[in-house]
């Protein structure tokens, strides 16, 4: 009960300032038609309600299972099983990621459907899957995070030079949107599960870095999509 109350309050505190800023703008410089203001307000109510229900759903059941899967797959001790599971989890959570959908919708709107919404979503999901798998291997083999990040970003900037420049901004953005409200708790839980079994030097901290790596994958994937296009 206490956690429900906290979630509700957290969301309200988070959403109220945005509504206030828009209202202040409305009365100072915007002067939009009243219908737009109502439309915005209803949208914000839907968003807050949705956010509360969504967060409760994540905390009620999904996070614990994510951690269980992470712990369980490492018990097999087979690197390939871990890689496969990391890939699968990364892929399925990205397909469910709201930010990815919103960005793909905007991309579709701007380009008029040169590249379909689902092609973009699937490339992003493939990128995340591959890099979550890579991140799990990193935890198990205790590879320094800095080295992997440096190599990945070097590849990103190399691809950015080759590809049609119009693909660079959307590619870079794809990296940011993958890591939203489903992906973050989920792959963090998975990583912490894997790290706790493989108690390397400091197991807790090695669970981190997953989200960061997961955001490089889709950049590379979308830039490659641009090269192929």
């Amino acid at each position, binding site marked *: 009960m206490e956690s429900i109350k906290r979630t509700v309050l957290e969301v309200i505190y988070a959403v109220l300032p945005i509504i206030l800023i828009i209202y202040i703008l409305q009365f100072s410089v915007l002067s939009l038609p009243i219908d737009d203001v109502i439309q915005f307000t209803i949208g914000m109510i839907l968003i807050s309600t949705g956010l509360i229900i969504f967060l409760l759903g994540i905390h009620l059941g999904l996070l614990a299972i994510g951690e269980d899967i992470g712990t369980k797959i490492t018990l097999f001790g087979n690197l390939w099983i871990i890689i496969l599971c990391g890939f699968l989890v990364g892929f399925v959570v990205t397909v469910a990621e709201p930010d990815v959908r919103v960005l793909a919708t905007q991309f579709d709107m*701007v380009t008029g459907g040169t590249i379909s919404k689902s092609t973009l979503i699937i490339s992003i999901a493939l990128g995340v899957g591959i890099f979550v798998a890579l991140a799990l291997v990193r935890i198990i083999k205790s590879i320094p995070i800095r080295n992997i990040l440096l190599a990945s970003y070097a590849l990103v900037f190399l691809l950015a030079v080759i590809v049609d420049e119009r693909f660079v901004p959307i590619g*870079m953005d794809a990296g940011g949107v993958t890591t939203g409200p489903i992906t973050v708790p989920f792959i963090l839980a998975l990583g912490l599960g894997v790290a706790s079994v493989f108690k390397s030097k400091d197991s807790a901290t090695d669970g981190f870095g997953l989200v960061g790596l997961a955001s490089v994958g889709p950049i590379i994937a979308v830039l490659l999509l641009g090269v192929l296009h």
Partner: protein
Amino acid sequence: MIEVIFTAFYDIEYTFLEVLRAIAPLTVLFIVSMVFLLETTREQIIRVIVGLLFVLIGLTLFLQGVYTGLMPVGEKIGIVLSNLSYSWMLIPLGFVLGFVVIMAEPAVRVLNYEVEKGVGGYITQNTMLITLCIGVGISVALAMARVLYGIPLMYLLVPGYILAFILTKFCSSTFVAIAFDSGGAATGPMTVAFILTMALGVTSNIEGRDPMLDGFGLISLVALAPIITVLLLGTLYSMIEKKNARQYEEV
């Protein structure tokens, strides 16, 4: 009035179907791993079913609000603001919006919580949150400047990432990992749906701006700024730690 309420729920069945399709692979993965991998208790099964139902309903309402409320109005706000003679005010407004929107990101909350738990309270949730808010505020302000003046994305990203990789030299690897995590987590649905839409509205209204080149890219700047701020925080922490260690030796 009634028409507006109608608009808000327009095509909600499509949003519902979209979310259903979006969480279907996840549901399959859950079922498969619960059947073959985990020794699932009755309680866990109930938890997962309720959890998935909540996610389904929550995401549908959320996306519906984004599609019918935030996106269309966000674009209009962008257009109106870029028409102003003092359109430079988009830059400070960007700072405020970035600062405030990041407080609304559920992913940031989850990350802060996991970070505090993971490092045993060494970094409090509030320190993380304020640091992220300032970082994102600066990046949205920069993104707005970019849209207004047509600065190429790479002019900001390349120096930014070089700075980030230099800073990683001075931080512990815990901070490096957390920093790059926070970059990704900071860019949630609110940033994408509201701030990016606003920026796309601005690009559509200023002559010579291409939304593909000048509008998109905002998210990547939002992702970069927290990386740098958290790394700065990390550098500060390791400096304090070193100072404390020296004082300890002296005593």
